[in-house]
């Protein structure tokens, strides 16, 4: 689960971590009064969306599509600048490297006091899958795209693995500070910050904390000038305070509905809807549709123990997508019985008035019964024995690839 920068900074402030003063705003008036309250000559006016690359993004008018402004993070040198930037950001569509062409509408701003930057660093904490340990990555190349740094100068990225039961030791923290070329009070400031930030990561069950840039000020203080924080969905049950920070307007409405029904759904760009049990098989189904010249419209895993109602919800979610021209159901019955799936398929096609071609492949537990139920239904349902046959049939039924 992702949160906005302003929410992350508020959590950091609460944890005693070094951030500069800032105010969350949703209108130009609020932005101006925030500027007056902060009493900082220079402020940053930052768009708040759940995607990176804001600084280099471009704002467009969502109605006309006309370009409004370059840059989703602006430095304002006076009150008029704040008014101009806030006006240009709010309600407009921000397109960044990470949002794709659709972009995201800016509904929230963060007005933050300026600070005197001596140097910018990159800092991230995440869980390394291979080592099965939390990993801290830091680089002196702050403000840059870390993937580019990793590509061009991997030696510039310093890594330390942290024992979750111990935290960042003084030795590790001092070593990392020294790798970044910090000494004296800047090093002391870094050590306190990194130990505090790691405790925050562990206590709040973060999936990732990325600070780009982390800055050293002219006074040799380390300041978290950015806050990209995401949380482990599986651990939200023990963090009700974090759940409250969820901004549903930043998430795909259909994906939220699917999740509420216990389904896992991801929308794609093709025209063949898929309904599958199991995440690996659902991915393989998409892949095989593509292999036979079609394009999958979605990933949809109904899970191990779906009932008739869930199958019907799954169908309705697939059919909401106007691009869908046909549907492939691929079930390997283990826990899930094929007769239950067959009944769900029939109930759904009747309730929803499905007219698009439908191919169903059922194997595993009670597959004979499932196939018999489909055959006896009198509905126009095509069946297949293998995934390849199912994919070939649905692609040909919708008239080949796109």
């Amino acid at each position, binding site marked *: 689960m992702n949160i906005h920068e302003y929410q992350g900074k508020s959590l950091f402030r609460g944890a005693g971590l070094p951030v500069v003063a800032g105010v969350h705003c949703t209108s130009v008036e609020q932005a101006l009064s925030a500027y007056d309250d902060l009493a900082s000559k220079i402020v940053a006016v930052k768009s708040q969306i759940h995607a990176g690359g804001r600084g280099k993004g471009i704002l467009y008018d969502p109605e006309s599509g006309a370009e409004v402004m370059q840059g989703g993070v602006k430095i304002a040198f006076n009150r008029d600048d704040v008014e101009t930037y806030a006006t240009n950001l709010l309600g407009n569509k921000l397109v960044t490297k990470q949002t794709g062409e659709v972009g995201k509408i800016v509904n929230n701003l963060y007005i933050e006091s300026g600070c005197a930057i001596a140097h910018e660093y990159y800092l991230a904490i995440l869980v390394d899958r291979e080592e099965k340990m*939390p990993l801290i990555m830091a680089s002196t190349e702050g403000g840059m795209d870390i993937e580019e740094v990793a590509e061009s100068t991997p030696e510039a990225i310093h890594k330390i693995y942290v024992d979750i039961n111990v935290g960042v030791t003084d030795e590790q923290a001092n070593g990392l500070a020294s790798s970044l070329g910090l000494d004296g009070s800047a090093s002391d400031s870094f050590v306190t910050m990194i130990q505090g930030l790691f405790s925050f990561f562990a206590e709040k069950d973060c999936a990732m904390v990325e600070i780009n840039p982390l800055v050293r000020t002219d006074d040799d203080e380390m300041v978290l000038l950015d806050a990209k924080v995401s949380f482990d969905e599986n651990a939200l049950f023990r963090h009700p305070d974090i759940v409250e920070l969820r901004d549903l307007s930043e998430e795909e409405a259909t994906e939220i509905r699917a999740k509420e029904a216990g389904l896992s759904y991801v929308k794609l760009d093709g025209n063949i809807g898929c309904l599958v049990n*199991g995440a690996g098989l659902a991915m393989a189904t998409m892949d095989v549709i593509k292999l036979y010249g079609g394009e999958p419209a979605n990933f949809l895993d109904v899970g*191990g123990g779906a009932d008739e109602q869930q199958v019907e919800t799954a169908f309705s979610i697939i059919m909401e997508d106007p691009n869908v021209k046909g549907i492939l159901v691929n079930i390997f019955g*283990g826990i899930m019985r094929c007769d239950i799936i067959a009944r769900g398929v029939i109930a759904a096609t009747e309730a929803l008035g499905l007219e698009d071609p439908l191919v169903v492949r059922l194997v595993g537990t009670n597959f004979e019964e499932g196939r018999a139920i489909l055959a006896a239904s009198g509905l126009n349902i095509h069946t297949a024995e293998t995934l390849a046959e199912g994919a070939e049939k649905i692609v040909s039924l919708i008239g080949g690839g796109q």
Partner: protein
Amino acid sequence: MAIWIEEDAKILVQGITGKQGTFHATKSVEFGANVVGGVTPGKGGQMADLGIIQVPVWGTMSEAISATDADASVIYVPPRFAGAAIIEAADAFKSVKGNGVIVCITEGIPTLDMVKATAHVRGIEGVRLIGPNCPGIITPSETGGAKIGIMPGSIHAKGRIGVVSKSGTLTYEAVAQTMSIDEGQSTCVGIGGDPVNGTGFIDCLSAFEADEQTAAVVMIGEIGGTAEEEAAAWVAENMSKPVVGFVAGMTAPPGKRMGHAGAIIAGGKGTASEKVAAMESAGIRCANDPSEIGAVLLKALQDAGLR
């Protein structure tokens, strides 16, 4: 032989009185697995009804292992308690008999709980963790076998193909594919789709390499992480038996989690095409389509003079 789990392995079920625990333990018993009892905190002394048999329930894993000399435990407890259940099982196997296999089926365990649990298990020699978020492990026998998990038992038969996979239903496809060319399985291991898990591909491959019953291995990967690439490098250096593979997620978009917590292409890493390229360069023949795994396996067996 087979790997890690013998056909008649004595199995305990953690969370045996819960809905999932009772249901799947009953299925295991029906298949012929040797379920010797279970554990539910606070319910020690009861009997659990598994259909054709009744088995005793203990309050702790230590008591259960002491009483039964169990070889393995399977965990069906809810996600928030699963990390602690793994640690309890590991400590109990270590102190009571010095070894054991823990199979965690539970999906949705917090990642940092798994970081703690895997660190704990790693420090205990002789104790192995399989999963979490996996279908389990099965060693088929002539009459059934050790079915430890949620896989449909009926699709399996005893044979000489090892199967290792990150996915559940795709493992069943792979098993069905071995059957389609008249080959059974030595052991099938689901290592799970979470970012942090216990046993990995290399652990399985190295055990299959050493296992006399296993002649060849089917390895099923999916997007996310670099475990397939590391396994491929290991195979190139160490594996004499044929390995064939499949990787799911060629069409998965970057930055989107595809059902499994670990199935995500992040920062340009973890794509299916990179994995297939690494596997093929290590001599692992990959099917483009799970329906072709049987044919690819048959060819590999023929080329190795095994058919």
